[in-house]
């Protein structure tokens, strides 16, 4: 049995002074090297949960532990995110004025690497997602699938221990969606990286080894394949 990477303890998250309950008590663990999917319809609280796992937000109740340490006890969450977590978003969230190569280098400014080292690593990452010929292209000149692959390369920039993907195929056609998921699956297999993908699409969830279903802010099932 692998070590526990993340432990979610009765996490609740409400907004608007408690009027909106996005999460109503989530309890689960994610083990090192696991590939989990959190599935549910729009507005069920799955993206909120992902943001909490990624230390972008804090729970209203309960706590999240990373390798046994509460996220609330981590003094510099920016540094924690930079060194530990990779994010892939539905809308890619690339900087439009920077080339693919430059976008991938953005997180690396938080690492003690030289400019040459940053460039070398970014080039390798883009090649690994099949974009070796598109290094100097700006995001607006790339297809949705290419942009998401740039975002995947960026999420791997600092060699994170956990990759969090929020509807990574939400803006892609089915062919590109499949390709992106195959890339994520391959990264998971080759690097043994822990991954959590949030999706509403069962076809995407089926790429994962474990599916956590969520409805109205509550986990309703948790199945390993």
């Amino acid at each position, binding site marked *: 049995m692998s070590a526990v990477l993340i432990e979610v303890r009765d996490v609740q998250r409400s907004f608007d002074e408690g009027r909106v309950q996005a999460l109503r008590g989530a309890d689960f663990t994610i083990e090192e090297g696991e590939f989990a999917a959190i599935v549910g319809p729009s507005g069920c609280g799955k993206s909120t949960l992902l943001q909490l796992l990624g230390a*972008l937000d804090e729970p209203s109740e309960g706590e999240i532990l990373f390798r046994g340490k509460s996220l609330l006890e981590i003094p510099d969450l920016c*540094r924690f*995110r930079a060194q530990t977590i990779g994010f892939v978003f539905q809308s890619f969230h690339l900087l439009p004025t920077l080339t693919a190569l430059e976008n991938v280098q*953005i997180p690396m400014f938080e690492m003690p690497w030289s400019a040459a080292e940053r*460039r070398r690593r970014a080039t390798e990452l883009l090649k690994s997602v099949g974009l070796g010929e598109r290094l100097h292209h700006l995001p607006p000149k790339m297809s949705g699938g290419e942009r998401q692959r740039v975002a995947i390369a960026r999420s791997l920039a600092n060699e994170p221990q956990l990759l969090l993907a929020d509807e990574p195929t939400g803006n892609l056609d089915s062919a590109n969606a499949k390709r992106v998921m195959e890339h994520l699956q391959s990264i998971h297999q080759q690097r043994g990286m822990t991954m959590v993908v949030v999706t509403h699409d069962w076809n995407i969830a089926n790429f994962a080894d474990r599916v956590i279903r969520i409805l109205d802010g509550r986990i309703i099932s948790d199945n390993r394949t």
Partner: protein
Amino acid sequence: MSFLTIVFKNLLRRRTRSLLTIAGIAIGIAAVVALTSIAWGFEKSWEQAYRARGTDLVVTKITSQSPMPAPFNEKFAADLLKLPRVKEVSGLLTDLISIEDAPTTLVFGWALDSFLWDHLKVVKGRKPSGDDEKAVVIGTVAADMLRKSIGAKIHIEADEFTICGIFESTALVENGAVIMSLRQLQRVTENTGKVNFLNVKLEPGSTQEQVESLRKTIKERFAGFNAFTSSEVAQSNTAIQAAKGMSWATSLIALIVGAVGVTNTMLMSVFERIHEIGILLAIGWRRSRIVRMILYESMALSFLGGLAGVALGFVAIKVIQTTPMIHGKIEGEISAALFGLAILVALALGVFGGLYPAVRGSRLSPTAALRYE
């Protein structure tokens, strides 16, 4: 890619806005450069005047703030001559008088046997021959300004004088002046037996310490009097202080306008990029890096505005010097120190104008910023 690449790419996104901000800063810095240059030049020209006369110390009466020190009894010169190392003391009367149609002109009254005349080069005619002669010499710039030549009559207050000579001085401020015998100016200004400056020349080879010691002695022994070195007398001159004060006040207004412009530009830039700042925070950029990015952007704008402002300011100085009111009287000082000061002020403007937008940008919540469209 370096961090500065991101900074410059951000600035190049809104080229027109960046250029307009640079132009705004440039105008502010140009005002600082031009006004400071003229104030410094004004001070320098007075300093040159005292140096050219060979004056080691200038003694005046401590008076309330007025353009010229109050006159005092000229016999005080004899007391100063008794002090150690004092070689010569020459009393002079100086006043600002409006002559005919010309703007206010400096008029000096010098004893005809004084060492003060030694540095003047009479290019046409001669100096007044005696205390009774109602004659003046005028500087080359004053001759241009008054449109007068040798033999012409000139009206000073209620009297008519004949121009007997035209001179040139190494000190710009003297070139725009009119000089007559001390007795004549005392009579014209109703200050018989009085002077308002005593120029003291020490024995050759006197050291800085000896000059300083004499200065202390004068201040201690003669209550109500002050002694200055040539550079200090320029600094303590009320007119120079007023010019410097005006230049700083005007510069400050220009700088405040510039800082508001930078703040406005950077705030707009932050508001436009809330989503992007959210991305940067989400992928782990520290808040201090966000602050640095925005501050570097505002400092880059200010630095470029500063360079353009220095160039514009130097052009403005040349233009101002050609105006009839200023021509020949003041030479703006263009120096490395002024360039350095202007660039430093510009960078400070960038920091000041960019600080609030930078802090505001860095305090965004990553989740709220990511949702922002």
